[in-house]
Structure formats: C-alpha cells, structure tokens
C-alpha cells in the first residue's frame, strides 16, 4: 500500500463522513452534544485540503499530516483522539514508500495505543475504542493467518461495525455520554460508529 492508497483512504473517509454527517450528529444528539458529524466533516474536509496543498510523498508523512490537521481543525474529544490515531500510525510507518499488511496492522496498533494513552478508555467504556480495538485485533489475526489483503480489511471493517453495534447496550464510562449514567444505554456511540466508517473506507480504498 503506497501513498496513493492512503490518499484514497482519506478521500473515502471524507466522502463517507460527509454522507453520514447527519447520522453521526443524531447519534451524538442522543447521548452527547450533537456535533460529531459536523466535527469530522470539518476535519476530513480540511485534511483533504491539506493533502492537496502539501502532496506528502510517503504514507507516513501523509498520515501524520492528516492527524495534525484533525488536531488543528476538529476540536472536541474526537479531534485530538483521531488526530493522535493518524499521527501515531504515520509515525509507525516511518519513511517507507510502501506499507505491507503486517506494517498496516502494526500502524493501527500504534493508533489504538495512542487513543488509549490519551483518552484512557478501555474496551466496554462505550467509546471509539470499542470499534477500534476489535478491528485492529481482527486485522492482526487475518494478517497472521496470511489472508488476502481484501479479506483482511473486510474482517477489520466487519469487526469495527460489530464493535460499534455492540456499544448500544453499554453504559458509557468515558466522554460526554458518561454524564447520562444508565440513560446512555440503548444508543450507539457516535465515535464507535465513525470508527466503523473509517475501516469500511479502508476496505473501499483497497477495492479501488
């Protein structure tokens, strides 16, 4: 996977977030503050603009730029968290011009660590981690099993989507939704839902 591939990923994310903007915002309205869709839309539109302006030459540089842009433009909880995720992933890729499936997997593990270091959320806290962690695990496993890239990415996307859906019955213990206590139960976490979009976009980029 080269720089072009990751540029395509960001394009796919931006399109998916734009399309799901209202949905994400409505999820956030139910247990948060109704801005998650607007936040990510603003962030990924800015990321695309930044990429167009800077034309980074390696996957690592590209992802660091995306992460930095998210941190600079999004605000809220998701800005620093997603921003850190992309930056950590990019940093893990170093100067390489190509990234192997195993390296992608390592990069996503670094992203997950970054998110958890910053936000201190464990699985089951009803956050983006509930989609990110299983997706990363599924990708690890698929890569270890030597499955084809598309299959591996499909496994990751499916795991993220399952993880997001599985947040519905949970009571939130991190972020804004935790203020609702038991009333947070019965709603999908918006950050987990957007993480699922990110992994679905990764699969779509590979299918291009």
């Amino acid at each position, binding site marked *: 996977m080269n720089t072009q591939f990751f540029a395509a990923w960001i394009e796919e994310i931006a399109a998916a977030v734009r399309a799901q903007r209202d949905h994400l915002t409505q999820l956030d*309205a*139910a247990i948060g503050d*109704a801005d998650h869709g607007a936040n990510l839309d603003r962030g990924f539109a800015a990321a695309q603009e930044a990429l167009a302006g800077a034309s980074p030459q390696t996957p690592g540089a590209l992802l660091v730029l995306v992460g930095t842009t998210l941190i600079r*433009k999004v*605000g809220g909880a998701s*800005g620093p968290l997603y921003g850190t995720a992309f930056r950590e992933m990019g940093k893990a890729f170093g100067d390489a011009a190509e990234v192997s499936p195993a390296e992608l997997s390592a990069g996503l593990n670094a992203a997950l660590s970054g998110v958890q270091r910053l*936000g201190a959320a464990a699985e089951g806290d009803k956050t983006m981690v509930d989609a990110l962690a299983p997706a990363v695990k599924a990708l690890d496993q698929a890569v270890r099993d030597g499955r084809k890239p598309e299959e591996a990415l499909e496994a990751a996307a499916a795991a993220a989507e399952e993880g997001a859906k599985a947040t519905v019955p949970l009571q939130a*213990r*991190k972020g804004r939704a935790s*203020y609702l206590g038991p009333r947070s139960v019965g709603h999908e976490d918006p950050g987990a839902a957007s993480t699922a979009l990110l992994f679905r976009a990764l699969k779509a980029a590979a299918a291009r």
Partner: protein
Amino acid sequence: MKKLINGADSIVTDALRGIAAAHPSLRVDVKNRVVFRADAPRPGKVGLVSGGGSGHEPLHGGFVGYGMLDAACPGEIFTSPVPDQLIEATKGVNGGAGVLHIVKNYTGDVLNFEMAAELSRDEGVEVATVLVNDDVAVQDSLYTAGRRGTGATLFVEKITGAMAEAGAPLAEVARVAREVNERSRSFGVALTPCTVPAAGKPTFELGDTEIELGIGIHGEPGRTRAPMREAREIVRIAMDAINADLPLSGDTLVLVNGMGGTPLIELYVVFAEVEAYLREKGATAVRSLVGNYVTSLDMQGFSVTTCSLTGELTRLWDAPVETPALRWGR
C-alpha cells in the same frame, strides 16, 4: 429551526466580528479565534486563558478584560477549541509570569488544553492548569469522565482575575483557583432542549409537563426526567443535591444562571427560592449574580452555583472588574 445567523458554518466568526465591533476594550483575532484584552500581554502579570465550545455566551469572551481573563478561545458550537487557538492565546497573554489555563472538565476541553499546554511549554511559556468540575449531577467516579465544569468557571475566572491583576504569582493564582473550585457546587435543570445550528433540531425531546434534572451545558439530557412543578419545588431539588454533596453554611456566593432562553423575571423567582433555602440551612447569600452567564444556546432552564466564601475570596470577588458581561468598581 430559526436562528439569527448567516449560516451554521459562519456563526462563530460572525459573532466574533460583532464582539470586536461592540467592545473596544477587547482585541479580537477573528482569524485565529481568540478574544484578547486590548492591552495584553501585561508585563509581569500572570496571564489567564480560558476557552471552550461556543454557545455558552457570555462565557468566555464576555469575561475578558481588566480583573478577569486575558484571553478566551471559542470553539465551534459545543466543540472545544483546538490547540492552535489555545497556543496563540497562551503566547499572546504571556507577560513573563506564566499563564493559567482555566479548563472546564470535559474530555475534549481537557485533551485540547493539554496539547496546547505541552506545546506552549515547548516554546518556553510556563503554564499551569486548573480543572473546573463543580456539577454535582454527575457522579465523580471511575465510571464517568468526572464532574462537568459549569457555573463555577465564572467564579474561578473572576477571583483568579483579581489575584492576577494584583500581581500574585502563577502558583498562588493556581492554588486559589483550585480552592474556589473545591468550594463550589452546581446543579442544572432544563425546561426545554436547545437546538445546535449544525444539527438543525432539538438535542432531545421533552413533553409539555416534563423537565430534565441534572443537565449539563451542552444540550445533553440530564440524569433523570421528572414532572414539571412549581419553581419552589424545582429549586429544592437542585439545592438538596448541592447541599447533600457539600453542606451549605456561612457566607455564600450564589449564581442563579439562565440557560439562555429563560426570561430574567423567572430567574429572579428562582433566586428568591434559592435565597430562602440558604437561610433555612443557616447559610447567607452575601454575594449573588442573577442572569444569563453560562448558557446553552436557546435552552430554557437554570442552574444554581454556590461557593462557600472566605474573607479572602470575598475580597477578591469584590475587586474591580471590567469585562463585557461582568463589571464593577471601574
């Protein structure tokens, strides 16, 4: 949704232009989204920076000026500001004596301020941070993001502002900021939801005879829903929650705060009941504010914040302040 805006995307910028035009005592960097005191930085004075999502006006921009904040950073509606803004503000108010970040305890605010503090320190600015977390509606436990920062933010900003103006060093200002926060408690009630412009519809639905108890300031639902009742009884619920957490006694500073859509006459009705409750508990509302200070867009409802005063805190509260939303003594 009907709002007096030119568009959901330009609301923060447009409002900043308005603030700039209305208040010559402020210097507004519209592009970087920072509201500065016109005379910032003041050499030798600790700089005070706060910020948070927009939609809570006059918080924070309305509290920038002599004796209060040196700069405020408004994020998008209900979205914490980004580190760039905060760094710009931090550097812009640093008069060599360091900068205090006054942060309401929300994950987004905490993360963005942390990043800004780290990067500002890299650039040689001494930064201390105080977290405001006064809202008793949220359990302060490992199972939540901790208590929210609401009305006590105003108290912390005013009181630390007076200290900084008087030349107190950063460590001392930070200590008193934490003391004010520890002595303060809040509880909020919503009669209606609010509508975030970008979302276009109310954040929750509430029946004609229902209220939300224990709401925050971001349009999120509260801890419980209850039947509508008389102001007297609603106030009792709020004050009982505060009193259970930190028994009320002695000289008390009280804020009866409107959420943005509540008429002032109703806030005075609420204040009358709050004051009576305090008296019943043997406490006295020696200082008070009644009005819209920490709002939630167009939400109808109120919050009460109390702060148990000391002689020092009372003196600092009374010190002159000159900002768009709080002004006395000059």
